[in-house]
């Protein structure tokens, strides 16, 4: 099977803090891939380095066979990115943002506008298309970010926490678009710490904890004999299930 993303010995530290401590990973093409891990596991750092937004201290990253740092022309044209914690050009309206991004990506103006209209429709943003993005809600921002990432029809889509803070209706819309997109053979890599979501969406997962890969492979393989991905995940990252009952015996019951 060909790899959409090939990562070798990826390292990054911020001062004393080691964020990514040597990652080797091959993500198969054409799959819906979940990158899961607790907060601070290095998911965002890894995705930033894979997409060329953060320079690694060491290691190599290849996307569809092209080195991210040595061949940016080939890579940047083939990937779509929705980062977490970075702004958009929020003083543009939703439609203007898509028009801007599409043209910047080299699409002809008319084509960019046509695709923008369709994406705005599908993502339920047509009613808010002339509103400035700064006035959008969290769910609307994620949707317009997703639209901007899809506009140039990338081969691999990287989404950092695309469902964080998104209401169920918007989440379902995003989900529908992503499923349609992977069905056509494209690859989606997204990070999340919501296991139920990953379990229901992905067919391939990689578990990241403390800057290292703890497990990776098809969903069933990583889940193993555990009843759910959640249980398997807790075991993998080494979280002990604490008995909270004894310390908080006053909690509940109505009396003060």
């Amino acid at each position, binding site marked *: 099977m060909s790899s959409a993303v090939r990562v070798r010995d990826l390292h990054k530290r911020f001062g004393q803090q080691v964020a990514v401590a040597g990652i080797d990973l091959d993500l198969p093409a054409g799959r819906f891939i979940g990158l899961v891990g607790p907060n601070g596991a290095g998911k965002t750092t890894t995705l930033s380095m894979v997409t*060329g937004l953060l320079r690694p201290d060491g290691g190599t990253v290849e996307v569809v066979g092209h080195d991210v740092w040595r061949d*940016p*022309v080939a890579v940047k044209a083939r990937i779509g*990115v929705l980062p977490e914690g970075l702004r958009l*050009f929020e003083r543009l309206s939703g439609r203007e943002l898509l028009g801007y991004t599409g043209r910047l990506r080299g699409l002809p103006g008319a084509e960019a506008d046509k695709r923008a209209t369709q994406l705005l429709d599908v993502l339920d943003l047509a009613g*808010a298309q002339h509103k*400035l993005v700064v*006035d959008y809600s969290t769910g609307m921002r994620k949707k317009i970010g997703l639209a901007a990432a899809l506009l140039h029809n990338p081969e691999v889509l990287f989404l950092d926490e695309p469902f964080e803070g998104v209401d169920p209706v918007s989440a379902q819309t995003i989900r529908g678009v992503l499923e349609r997109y992977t069905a056509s053979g494209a690859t989606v890599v997204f990070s999340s710490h919501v296991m139920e979501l990953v379990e229901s969406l992905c067919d391939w997962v990689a578990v990241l904890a403390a800057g290292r890969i703890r497990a990776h492979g098809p969903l069933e393989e990583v889940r193993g004999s555990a009843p759910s991905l959640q249980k398997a995940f807790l075991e993998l990252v080494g979280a002990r299930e604490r008995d909270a009952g004894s310390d908080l015996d006053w909690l509940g019951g109505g009396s003060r």
Partner: protein
Amino acid sequence: MSAPTAVVVRLKLSLLRNGLRQSAGRRAAYVASAVVVLLFAALQLVGLIALRGHAHAASLVVLLVAVLGLGWAVMPLFFPSGDETLDPTRLVMLPLRPRPLVRALLAASLVGIGPLFTVLMLAGSVVAVAHGAVAYGVGVLGAVLGLLMCVTLARAVAAANIRLLTSRRGRDLAVLSGLVVAVGAQVVNFGAQRLGSSGLGQLDPAADVLRWVPPAAAIGAADSASAGSYGTAAAQLLLTAAASVALLVLWERSLTRLMTAPDGSTLQAAGEGTRGRRGSSGLTRLLPAGRTGTVMERSLRYVWRDPKTKAAWVTSLAIGLIVPVFNALQGTGSPYFACFAAGMLGIQMYNQFGQDTSAFWIVALSISSAQDAYAELRARALALLVITLPYATLVTVLTTGLLDDWPRLPEVLGLSFALLGAMLATGAWTSARFPYSIPQEGYKNVAPGQAGLAWIAIFGGMVAAALLCAPVIAAAIWLNVSAGGAAWSWVLLPAGAAYGATVTWLGLRLAAPRTAARLPEILAAVSKG
């Protein structure tokens, strides 16, 4: 002290103490600012005491206290989140009744450097005007009332505006209102100059009105009591007390509303619906196709829509006009001052990517070669020129016209264009080499820890720009001093324009590969705000 009052006052004291528990640099800044304020207050106290017996002491003091009151009124508009204990929206979830809450917040408001500064100033004012035991008694009462009134005023304004300040539009306005302060400072400066030339007597008419306006009325009372008009003094005290009570009631009302009605500003914005497309098609049609037009359009839209960018532009445009034209109007100017416009506007090319904030990632993902970076930088320079070129020309023509020095027009225009080109070139290069974050909230234009970087970028860049212009400046000087050179000074117009264009092109060419090679570093540098 009742329970909530004690808790809130203690919270305020811990917050003040916690100012010392930050990183070394911030702690130093915190201590230094406190020391400076206290030193200033002490000096002011000494100055006010020295003023005792001066013929216009009362007028000056009344005016000072009025300005102090104004300061308290506008302060919360600029620092909405300056005092966390006093932000009632943080207390919404607590089961507190409005009356005890008002009492607690009022007590907490009296703790801090601001109130201390006010007490010192009011005390000094009383000493400056009070003569006799009765006057001192009135003065002490007046000072207490004045302090109470100032604090209540600030809280009432803050509470009344908190809705505005928690909405996006309100914050946008707050950023722009910094300009009002800048312009106000110019007016004060102008007033002070006139005062310097014609004496303190100028203040008397204004003070006659203000001595009836609280909180200045409280100090006016001490002055009236010194003069023996006890009835007037009582009336002035009463007025201050009534104003304080009215403000308290107003504050309590808006507090109650804030605590019971949820903030609906985002809901309103969401319900606003479509606003109709604005002039986008017209603008797009005029701009070139491809990356150039796309980037220019975005840059120009941001000049109008982004409050930070807008404030920077308005400042540059205003100062670039005011310095040469006002100097020309006063007859002290020189046509060469018109180059100021080009210089001020050229500054907008600096820290281009910092102006993008972390949204720069969108740009970074679309740049994969030095050619892309060149197109991006060139488009930004062109967007700037769309405004700058006609404006600098206009200012130059206006200045030379006012000075009636038309023969120098081509020469000054040439110098302006050369300077503009040098600013664009150095701006592009420093944008790539020394980017820094511009925080989107508040008035700071540099993120903490990056001030050094900003200084290097701006001042280093400006010195470099001046040096780059040296050949054109030298030519201008030579033509002016050499016999018969003036007849050839028109040559500087085409020469300066060509020189500026060449320098810009070279600067962009040099900056482009640096930008393309440093995309992740630039993104990291501009994402701190």
